[in-house]
């Protein structure tokens, strides 16, 4: 016999009641003497969740409710479907542990490999027009709000542009449909002229005056231009867009209807994940540049040199600010713990690590060995 309460359809008043089952039929006796009976198959039983009150809806719309979940499960087990698969999973510790391990494992695997791989695949499956589309107004927007016209002489600009078109663009033999265009701009920020280079997915590459002034020779300029071409070839802008969207959707699903305090933690998490992707894009573009430099017979050491020069320049300008984060991101060797955390949130890898990579490539450039294929 199961103790519970009974409500007539849609009414708030509750009556004490008991439920009994005999073979395929049930009898509910309500306080006051009323008897309700019928076939067990006519009862709609809500799924079990934790130990909350169970509702058994009768065919006339009235409801028998009880917290004696185990008794109800036994009763249904004997007759029909049982407590349901989901509750089975929820109530076994072993399954919970397994769920925990699978969840954490697949979350890590998904963020580490799944999302980047999926984004890479989607980015390359989309037509090239998409690249032009997302870069559409970016340059004019930057021109209006960030850049100033270049102060470099037309002769110098033309010399670099010609070299770029004749020597570097042909290196990208797989992507002859890409139209690379080189732009020169000045970028002043907080009274300093910023050395930087950036690529738009359309193939527009922008270099700042200060970068050209800081570089000592053509090889150094080439190394950075090839790095930017790497971004274009790998469709990093598009990948980043897809990654952000995927992460955003996942976060919405996991956090669901959470409150603001939980949201803050989730937000911090997604920034860390997307910056991780962003740093991987930088390494990928670096690797592209190094390989093309070997192909063109330029020593990858040039990249290390120009990165260090930019870091040195930023350091001297910023009175020893340790954690500047432009393309030439300086980073000191010794960092307090907070500095390390900030690094993890940073979208660019430390200059130190990139310089090491460049030197490794430079080694095999000097030895003319094929060992670099492995890098």
């Amino acid at each position, binding site marked *: 016999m199961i103790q519970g309460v009974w*409500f007539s*359809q*849609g*009414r*708030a*008043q*509750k009556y004490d009641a008991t439920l009994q089952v005999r073979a395929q039929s049930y009898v509910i006796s309500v306080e006051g003497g009323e008897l309700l009976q019928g076939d067990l198959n006519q009862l709609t039983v*809500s799924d079990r*969740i*934790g130990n*909350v*009150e169970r509702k058994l809806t009768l065919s006339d719309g009235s*409801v028998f*409710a009880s917290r004696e979940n185990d008794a109800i499960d036994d009763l249904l087990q004997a007759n029909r479907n049982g407590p349901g698969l*989901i509750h089975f*999973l*929820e*109530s076994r510790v072993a*399954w*919970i542990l397994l*769920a*925990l391990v*699978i*969840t954490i494992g697949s*979350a890590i695997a*998904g963020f580490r490999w799944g999302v980047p791989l999926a984004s890479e695949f989607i980015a390359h499956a989309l037509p090239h027009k998409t690249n032009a589309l*997302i870069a*559409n*107004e*970016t340059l004019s*927007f930057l021109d209006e709000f960030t850049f100033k016209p270049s102060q470099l002489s037309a002769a110098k600009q033309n010399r670099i542009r010609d070299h770029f078109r004749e020597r570097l663009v042909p290196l990208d033999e797989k992507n002859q449909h890409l139209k690379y265009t080189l732009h020169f701009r000045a970028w002043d920020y907080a009274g300093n002229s910023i050395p930087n280079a950036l690529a738009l997915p359309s193939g527009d590459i922008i270099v700042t005056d200060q970068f050209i002034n800081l570089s000592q020779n053509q090889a150094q300029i080439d190394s950075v231009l090839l790095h930017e071409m790497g971004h274009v070839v790998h469709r990093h802008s598009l990948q980043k*867009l897809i990654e*952000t*969207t995927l992460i*955003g*959707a996942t976060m*919405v*699903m*996991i*956090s*669901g*209807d*959470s*409150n*603001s*305090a*939980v*949201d803050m*933690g*989730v937000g911090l998490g997604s920034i860390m994940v997307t910056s991780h992707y962003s740093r991987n894009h930088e390494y990928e573009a670096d690797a592209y540049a190094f390989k093309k430099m070997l192909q063109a017979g330029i020593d990858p050491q040039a990249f290390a040199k120009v990165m260090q020069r930019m870091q040195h320049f930023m350091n001297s300008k*910023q*009175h*020893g*600010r340790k*954690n500047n984060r432009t393309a030439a991101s300086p980073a000191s060797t010794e960092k*307090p*713990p*907070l*500095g390390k955390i*900030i690094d993890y949130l940073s979208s660019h890898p430390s200059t130190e690590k990139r310089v090491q990579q460049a030197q490794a490539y430079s080694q095999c450039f000097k030895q003319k060995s094929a060992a670099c294929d492995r890098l």
Partner: protein
Amino acid sequence: MKPLDFGGSGFEYFKIWIVNILLILITLGVYYPWAKVRNQRYFYANTTLEGRNFEYHATGKQLLMGYIIAMVFLMVVSIVQNVSPIGALGAFLGLSIIIPWVVWRSLAFSMRMSSFSNVRFRFVGDLKGAYINFMLLPGLLLLCIYGGPSLVLLWLITLPTSIGMEEGLLIATFAFVLIVLMVYLFAFLKNKNTHYMVNGYRFGQGQFSTLLETQKFVKILLKTLGLAVLILMSIAILTVFMMVLAGGFPSLLNIFSQDASDILAWLLRHNIEGALGLVYIAFLMATFILVAYFQSQVRQYVFANTVLNGKVNFSSSLTTISLAWLMMSNFLLVLVTLGLGTPWAKVRRAKLILKNTLVDVEHGIDGFITQQQDKQSALGEQIGDAFDVDIGIGV
């Protein structure tokens, strides 16, 4: 007056939560609507008043279609926002036109799917009210927040470099008027929103009704702002104090004679990134306290002035301190456990909030009877879910 009670436990909910996440992952997201239903049912059914509990009646199947549309919609908006500045503006305008409808549908659906003691809730507010409350009024407030300062900036640009006494006074007056206007508009908006929602709720044949004054909201808001100024000042004093400790008094004098980037350089030279971290945490705590103060005060005021069917009264005993402590400890709990503590955080929140929600049950609830209402699709509910629309029906 009797308090509501939450009977769930953190570990019990953890098991439900982790299985939900597992199934969402395995099904690549398709399971989400069913997960949401189990989630909601757990929290509703564990909420009791005098042995009677709430119920959530929506099914996963009902939510699925709306969920798919919402996800596609979310992706499109997210992509358009990233494509270009104009696209972002378009997405913003598009969303502001759709959101009121979403809120309206979402309220109607989620209320109809909720019951207490076998009697369903309803929401009967009209669409026009939703557009006034969730588009027109917020739009005016935004215009005030962004339009006013831009106007001042534009005017400043046209002026000669040195500003005289007269212009300074004029700007100060304009800024003052603008702030007064913003405070009043925000209080007015909060009042109208609450009014629209609470008066639209029905429990069976019973009507919720509330009569609130903007003036009272202005008071709460001004007190919150006052508290904010107080806290900010103490953080500033504390920061300067720490700088003095770290670098000695002479360098403090130097700070005031140098420009901003030099101060930053000084901070980093003295290696007090740790101290900067402390300041950041202080700001976070301050935010929690301010939010907790505003929310608990508004809640007390609204509950005390809300009545169901002219005789059932409500009251909130939630205090600023307990809510602020809950927010801080939950934040830490989620952060330290890398998210795995979320179920405990949610259960703690439900327990505290419900314990401090009081209902006058003297007249009994037996007389309430479910009323018929037109069927609503779950579309609005799911879009609202995807865009994190806060409709504040949570008790």
